[in-house]
């Protein structure tokens, strides 16, 4: 059985979209060291996306390239979790503007990297040797992202009254989006069947333990889930993704066929 390309795109789109979001802090971080840390996270994610798109392009053949996949697919073709495309602030419509909130950034990086350390760990045994190699490299990077975001989550939660309130608000806002981790998309199902992917559902207890432990140390509470389960990974996104892609893809699309 061959590697389901849609599954590689899911992993690649996750990385590129969150990489794009993290890079938005470059030049605007709360302290110079954090500008650099988030640039580093972003660089790792863009690097992961490139390898995954390259692998997908290789399997697709024809004139597929990493940049065709990143720059010339529309929002409905993107397969990332909705969580990752959200702006760095609370719940607002797509065309609303608000200041970036570092708590939102940190909590999102934490929730995602807490999942991905387990996913990459499992994918090291993927039947696709290219994906297994990408997973080994990504695991190291993601462990750092988890470490960085967890440290800040604890500092914020157990810091000042304001930082605690902001961190709790970010947890309340973002936690519902993590429900999307636990549904199974057709691409994931096919990849699991092909032994290319691991069953994410099986990672839930480990993720829960990581999250609950960090929230407890941060003196934050985990909200009970109620609400809408997002479906970004099957191409049904929030209003925010088309803005993100519009900005990211605009220049490349204005010069189709150009080499940079």
């Amino acid at each position: 059985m061959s590697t389901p390309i849609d599954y590689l795109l899911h992993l690649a789109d996750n990385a590129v979209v969150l990489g794009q979001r993290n890079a938005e802090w470059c030049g605007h971080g709360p302290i110079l060291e954090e500008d650099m840390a988030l640039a580093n996270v972003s660089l790792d994610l863009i690097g992961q996306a490139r390898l995954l798109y390259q692998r997908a392009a290789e399997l697709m053949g024809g004139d597929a390239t990493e940049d065709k996949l990143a720059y010339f697919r529309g929002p409905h073709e993107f397969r990332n979790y909705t969580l990752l495309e959200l702006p760095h602030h609370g719940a607002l419509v797509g065309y609303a503007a608000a200041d970036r909130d570092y708590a939102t950034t940190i909590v999102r990086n934490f929730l995602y990297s807490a999942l991905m350390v387990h996913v990459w760990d499992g994918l090291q045994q993927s039947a696709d040797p290219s994906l297994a190699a990408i997973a080994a490299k990504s695991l190291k990077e993601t462990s750092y992202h988890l470490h960085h975001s967890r440290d800040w989550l604890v500092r914020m939660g157990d810091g000042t009254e304001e930082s605690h309130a902001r961190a709790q608000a970010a947890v309340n806002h973002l936690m519902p989006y993590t429900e999307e981790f636990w549904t199974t998309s057709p691409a994931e199902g096919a990849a699991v069947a092909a032994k290319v992917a691991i069953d994410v559902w099986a990672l839930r207890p480990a993720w829960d333990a990581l999250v609950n432990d960090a929230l407890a140390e941060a003196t934050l509470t985990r909200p009970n889930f109620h609400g809408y389960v997002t479906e970004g990974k099957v191409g049904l996104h929030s209003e925010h993704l088309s803005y993100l892609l519009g900005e990211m893809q605009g220049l490349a699309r204005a010069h189709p066929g150009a080499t940079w």
Partner: protein
Amino acid sequence: MYTQAMDIPDESGKKLAAVSNAPSDQEAAFEARIDADGRIEPQDWMPEAYRKTLVRQISQHAHSEIVGMLPEGNWISRAPSLKRKAILIAKVQDEGGHGLYLYSAAETLGTSRDQMLEGLHSGKAKYSSIFNYPTLNWADVGVIGWLVDGAAIMNQVPLCRCSYGPYARAMVRVCKEESFHQRQGYEALLVMMKGTEEQRAMVQDAVNRYWWKCLAMFGPPDADSPHSAQGMRWGIKRISNDDLRQKFIDATVPQAKVLGVTLPDPELKWNEARGHYDYGQIDWAEFWNTVEGNGPCNKERLATRVKAHNDGQWVRDAAQAYARKQKERALKEAA
């Protein structure tokens, strides 16, 4: 990237008073070390004016690195390929790293990073005026690498031999990375020049806007340069503004030819007798006007730094509060 000649006067360097009338033993030792081209280290005695000049220069340089993250950061989200995006993020991150080493070097002179940032945010301290111009098309990123980092290298290589040890050592590391940036910028432009008509037009447009601004980065002509003589005496400045500028022009003209762009100066031509390129008049009125705050982006650059700092206050407060609590917990446990 960085800096214009680091002798732009600013408020933080206003009072460069003569220290004393009769040279003390310490002063004689300092002078002897300078004359022997030795290094001054943080624990060594140094004249107050030397210390102040260095703090002004190193902090201007550090501010330039972090303000310089903004014009290029402007294109990260829109970089036209993932490879160029990654290169640009890494470059802007390097500039932040340069800011960090430089703030640390300046801190060895007894001024804290907070004090230096206060100088930047209040408008008292200067940064390189090249960053007060906008980045209007993607080729600006490559041109900044090629020309702005290139000019910075010309300015900074001599600083690797600066008399103040921590600054000289920071410069060695910074210069290595700046040369890497310059090569990457130039390479990006080479690719664009081999591309479409529109890509070539972007490169030419960016060169047209940045060429003269880069020449001004070397600072005012030697005849009008207020701090140069003392800086030379102290081994803080090694080569004059005009000599550096000439060196930069001589090195850049052949690169422009290979690239296939026109440098926007009709008077630019080889002078056999001098063994250098002649060049036209730099618009110093425009330069000083921009240094004084009236350039196209001065207000945006500074306001953006101030906003980032103010918006980040709660995050820094949280880190401090948490560290304090951790310390108290450790003490309680020990008791």
